[in-house]
């Protein structure tokens, strides 16, 4: 019977010929992931099971949220993860100095391949769907059981097909595309469902665009977001993934619960206003909104392409005297490349600060917490009340070009205003 990409991957993982939406299945897993926040509770629960890890090469532990350790308690959590990794011979443990933000790092180092089934104790694990994998976030207890058994249960999601056509205009990137979609369907518009991207417009998107889009599938409530595998994907995988993998394609007559059309050529840069990612408005329709801080980075927009866009804008102006601009390369490799390309120099000369890779400010951890009444434009993924600090602070979500332009203007601004 006809199946979507997600259904085909899940059927293979469950050892079944086919699956249908709503079906409960158990799947073998290709990779399981935890970080310094979700890892420690998972380790505690894992110990109660009393079994060894199912495969030390298929577990990734990335201390990235509160590292380099922000306080004593965080140091204890990072230590618990480090000691667990050593005790169980975990191959893919990434120490500070080699680590990065997990969802930037794992694709970069080749731990994600098309057709694979990945769970992570982090909601943005859905990022890996950009490479044609099935990937979804779970909690610490699910992760503990998966570390012991190498499998987990899923309810097969029904699909939403998002047909992309056309090419995005100059300053429209992956962030604008996914925010536009979330604005259309709402923060629970894809709840329990799979967002399957398709159409000729996919070819116009870079891998960084796709990673940003799949990353925020969760912000529409999605179980996963997934892209077809094409030449862009295969080129990205070259030199990263040596192991064999299976390219899965959706059947032409696959059944979706809903189809959505997006003409990429008609999009403009957008911002999600507080306090939900669905409050999406075109930048050029906003009144003057002055800001105090800009963050460029995170698992959503911490890739070299994002920094390239920010650097292009900062080459045309310095950070506004009232604004703190914080730039966070997603991994050490991104940092190095940004340095070699001269972006770091551009950022520093513009008056921005450049940080080691960390999730830090995105979730209000550290490295850029907001005070009461402060506003930030951030390339991160959530603008919930209190997300980046004080409960009376505000977060405006945007792509890196809008964030950089806003840092220069001291108010939410479009890159065209800076480069005009």
């Amino acid at each position, binding site marked *: 019977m006809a199946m979507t990409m997600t259904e085909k991957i899940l059927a293979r993982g469950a050892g079944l010929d086919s699956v249908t939406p709503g079906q*409960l299945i*158990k799947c073998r897993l290709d990779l399981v992931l935890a970080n310094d*926040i*979700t890892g*420690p*509770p998972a380790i*505690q*629960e894992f110990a*109660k*099971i*009393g079994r060894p890890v199912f495969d030390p090469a298929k577990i990734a532990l990335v201390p990235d*949220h*509160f590292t380099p350790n*922000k*306080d004593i*308690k*965080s140091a204890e*959590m990072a230590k618990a993860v480090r000691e667990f990794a050593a005790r169980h011979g975990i191959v893919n443990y990434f120490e500070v100095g080699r680590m990065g933000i997990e969802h930037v790092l794992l694709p970069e180092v080749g731990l994600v391949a098309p057709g694979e089934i990945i769970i*992570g*104790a*982090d*909601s943005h*694990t859905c990022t890996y769907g950009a490479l044609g994998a099935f990937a979804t*976030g*779970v*909690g*610490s*207890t*699910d992760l*503990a*059981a998966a570390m*012991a*058994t190498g*499998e987990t*249960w899923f309810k097969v999601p029904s699909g939403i097909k998002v047909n992309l056509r056309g090419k995005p205009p100059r300053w429209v990137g992956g962030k604008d595309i996914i925010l536009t979609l979330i604005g259309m369907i709402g*923060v*629970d518009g894809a*709840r*329990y469902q799979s967002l399957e991207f398709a159409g000729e417009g996919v070819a116009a998107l870079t891998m960084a665009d796709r990673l940003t889009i799949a990353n925020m599938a*969760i912000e529409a*409530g999605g*179980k996963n977001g997934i892209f077809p595998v094409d030449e862009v994907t295969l080129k990205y995988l070259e030199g990263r993934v040596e192991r064999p993998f299976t390219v899965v394609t959706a059947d032409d007559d696959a059944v979706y619960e809903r189809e959505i059309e997006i003409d990429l050529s008609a999009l403009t840069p957008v911002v999600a206003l507080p306090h*939900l990612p669905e409050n999406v408005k075109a930048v050029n329709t906003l009144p003057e909104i002055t800001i105090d801080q800009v963050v460029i980075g995170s698992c959503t927009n911490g890739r070299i392409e994002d920094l390239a866009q920010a650097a292009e804008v900062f080459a045309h102006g310095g950070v506004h005297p009232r604004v703190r601009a914080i730039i966070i390369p997603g991994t050490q490799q991104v940092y190095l490349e940004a340095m070699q390309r001269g972006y770091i120099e551009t950022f520093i000369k513009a008056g921005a600060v450049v940080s080691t890779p960390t999730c830090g400010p995105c*979730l*209000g*951890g550290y490295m850029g917490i907001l005070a009461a009444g402060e506003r930030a434009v951030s390339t991160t993924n*959530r603008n*919930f*009340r*209190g*997300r980046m600090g004080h*409960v009376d602070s505000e977060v405006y979500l945007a792509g890196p070009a809008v964030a950089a332009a806003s840092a220069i203007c001291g108010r939410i601004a479009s890159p065209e205003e800076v480069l005009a």
Partner: protein
Amino acid sequence: MILEGKVWRYGDNIDTDVIIPARYLNTSDPQELAAHCMEDIDASFAANVRQGDIMVAGKNFGCGSSREHAPIAIQASGIACIIADSFARIFYRNAINIGLPIIELGKDAERIGSGDSVRVDLQAGIISNKTSGEEFKIQPLPGFIRDIAQAGGLINYVRGGKA
């Protein structure tokens, strides 16, 4: 199992950042988390919630982060059961996995208000709003989700050799 308590009522899209803000995620100790549960939208909750109380909410409860600290904080605060119109999927899994009863009631969740006295009979599948006199039927959990819930959570289920 019969649960009976006073209702703490919240709206739609209650995210895990307000259930337990990340500034408290440098611990996973249930009691420490419970002390800050819901504080960004309801500063009175942590101090006044009583063992056995019931949380009721609108659509998409628990959206956002995968942090299991969120259902752990709610459970440790004394809440015996969460009833909502709908749940975000990771939160739903996490609650089942830690043995916190969770009921997706659909639109009828609107008919339970703040401070109502509610009785939940999980075996019979009936919610009684004793304040309004209304009764609602609970859809049974399917397949091994029910088995996990009945085992008291995923770890007990796995230790029982079911996975």
